[in-house]
């Protein structure tokens, strides 16, 4: 059993609760940042702005999956089999968006 140490860690309920609330504040803060950025960059259209929003979304997703869904404390292998296949979606997104741009050019 390679990753036993992850599983055997027994935090006290108070610790866990603290961690949950901390995550909540992080998520809320990130959402606020989203909104603030949105208005700050309102007249500014670029790839970078969108990338920023997506990155913030990914960070939020990370906290939800890692803490709320307890993925951080599961075995790495489980995380691997859930997250790696999902990467295939990125291929779909990437290629279909290229296609969308091409359609735009054609029309």
């Amino acid at each position, binding site marked *: 059993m390679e990753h036993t140490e992850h599983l055997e860690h027994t935090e006290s309920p108070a610790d866990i609760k603290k961690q949950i609330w901390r995550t909540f504040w992080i998520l809320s803060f990130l959402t606020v940042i989203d909104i603030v950025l949105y208005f700050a960059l309102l007249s500014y259209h670029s790839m970078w702005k*969108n990338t920023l929003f997506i990155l913030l979304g990914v960070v939020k997703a990370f906290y939800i999956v890692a803490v709320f869904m307890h993925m951080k404390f599961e075995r790495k292998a489980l995380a691997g089999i859930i997250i790696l296949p999902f990467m295939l979606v990125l291929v779909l997104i990437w290629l279909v968006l290229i296609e969308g741009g091409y359609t735009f050019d*054609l029309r």
Partner: protein
Amino acid sequence: MILKNLLNKTFFAAVLFMFSLNVFALTSNKATTLVAKPSFELKSLMTEIRMDLQNPTQLITAQVSPMSAGVDATSTSGINWLLIIVAILLVAVIGVVFDILEKTAKIQGKTLLNWSKINSILLILFLVLGLIATVWEFYAHGKLTLFEQGSASEHGAIYDNMFMITLALTGVVFVITQVLLFWYSAKYKHNPNRKALYYPDNHKLEYIWTIVPAIVLTVLVVRGLITWNKIMYQKDEKAINVEIFGYQFGWNVRYAGTDNKLGFHDFRTVGVINPLGVDTTDEKAFDDVVTNELHLPVGVPVHFHFRAKDVIHGAYFPHFRAQMNVVPGLPTQLEFIPTVTTADMRAKLNQPTFDYALLCNKICGSAHYRMKMKIVIESQAEYEKWMKEQPALVNKAAAPKVEEVATPTADSKKKDKKEVALN
């Protein structure tokens, strides 16, 4: 116990056989009136089935001409049903008989057929006959393929070259692997006195047969990419602009006219008067020419713009090694240079009636299979002469002015698009 079982089965087989005979009797009773072949023998049934398969025209036309036979159509079709039932029953009989024979043989302590030997012989036979048939097929039908007929466009030569390389490579692999497969299967057939070689892996071999295909495929990929890019990104400033308009079930061609610019169009205005929905107020459209035949001058690049009215069609130019789907709401494009005139092709193929055709190659409805348009490749002079005979669009359309005003200005639409990038 076993004997009882056998007896039961024999009885079962007998009953089945009697039953099938009865059914067949029924069949042939009716068949006699039609085919006039009264027969209760198995053999004649087989010939009848064979006849049915090989020469259905004869048999079936005889069946469906009820006037002459004096029997209504429904009863004739009943015969086919019964034939099917007879076939099923016969299979059942053969199956049961086989079963019984095997069991009897087993009781007597011998095997009915040495299947191992038969199968290994059959495997080799199949291999040899199969390879012969493949070669024969190339000989017999190879000449009907487009590759034998030669391409009629400039990039067709690169295409055919690519095809031949692939054919040679895959052909070699095909023969080697199939020969090994059947040969090994037959050669190493079971022998209780022999033990198979315990040979679970050999890394050297595995690397070889991973890397060699990888290299071969790299060659194919690189060549393929070059060919693909060459064909798809053909772009010539001097190319004639031609619009192909597909609808259920036919094609229209719109030539750009003397200015070589296609006028704007709007799908909302497609109708009886204006089948292509061309914006007749657009001055670029004034000299456009709409026809039902595609005439192209030889040796001149043609840039096709595809447009569909209703569903996806596929514009397939087999002899020009060109194809592109015609998608409603998605203006697809393609460019190629025709190199062989219709007359030359006719001479080459020795078919005086031959015509190039544009086919629909994407399922589009009931008349999909005959949605075609004649393509004529001719000399520049002939082309120009033909073009002069075609009336320009605006005279032809003569659409009322009111409608023209109603069409939204596609011009401004285009401009907007170009200016504003996606954020």
